[in-house]
């Protein structure tokens, strides 16, 4: 007995090769976040204070800005992937699920864009 549908056989199509995409991206982002989050926590703790002058001077460093942008992008991506699974597990009604997933996707896109924008604004000197 084949598990392939008749339509699949007629079309001669194999798997979409995307079955592990979500799983793999979750792992990739997890591995990337290990050094990124350690760097972020250690850097914050190493700052003498969190006042505006200190933080902006820190964020103007090229490496700082670059790593902060990576942190924001990878963390929001990882968060989006994880929260999606939670919603898929606990929100069974199709309508509510789609609406929740859509809102969460938009929220994560907004967070990613806002975070990158904020870092660039400070790093490129527009935020005095």
């Amino acid at each position, binding site marked *: 007995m084949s598990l392939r549908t008749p339509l699949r056989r007629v079309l001669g199509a194999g798997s979409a090769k995307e079955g592990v995409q979500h799983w793999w991206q979750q*792992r990739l982002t*997890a*591995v990337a976040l*290990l050094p990124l*989050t350690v760097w972020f*926590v250690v850097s*914050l*703790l190493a*700052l003498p*204070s*969190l006042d*505006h*002058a200190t*933080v*902006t001077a820190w*964020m103007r460093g090229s490496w700082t800005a670059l790593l*902060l942008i990576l942190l*924001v992008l990878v*963390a*929001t991506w990882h*968060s989006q992937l*994880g*929260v999606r699974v*939670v919603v*898929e*597990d606990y929100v*069974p*009604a199709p309508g509510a699920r789609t609406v929740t997933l859509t809102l969460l996707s938009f929220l994560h896109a907004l*967070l990613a864009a*806002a*975070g990158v*924008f*904020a*870092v660039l*604004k*400070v790093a490129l000197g527009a*935020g*005095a």
Partner: protein
Amino acid sequence: MPARPLSPHLSVYKMSRYSLVTSILNRFAGVALSAGLLLLVYWLMSVAAGAGTQARAAQLLSLPVMKLVYGTCIAAFCYHFVAGIRHLVWDTGRGLERSQSQRSAYLVVAVSIALTLLLAYCAFVLKGHAS
């Protein structure tokens, strides 16, 4: 809702308490950190908006109740970090024997509690950043 078993198939597994607790804690911690992202981006935006805005945001961020929020974020981060490493090790096919996973469960809890205490001490006592 269809009248058939739906994922997560919690009822089909015979799970002992340690695996249930470490698993659901990892999920709670992940969701808490997702909420923490809001805080991070809010802080970055306030810095980018200038000294005045950041000073006003800092008033909000230094409310006494925020200590609880930072404490939760620190604990969630430490747990998710250590438990995540356990998952990555599992992904290589190692440590899946019952005795091994039981040992690693206790190890994860112990290490994440120690890390949480260390980070909380650094943030609240040494630096007073969060105060």
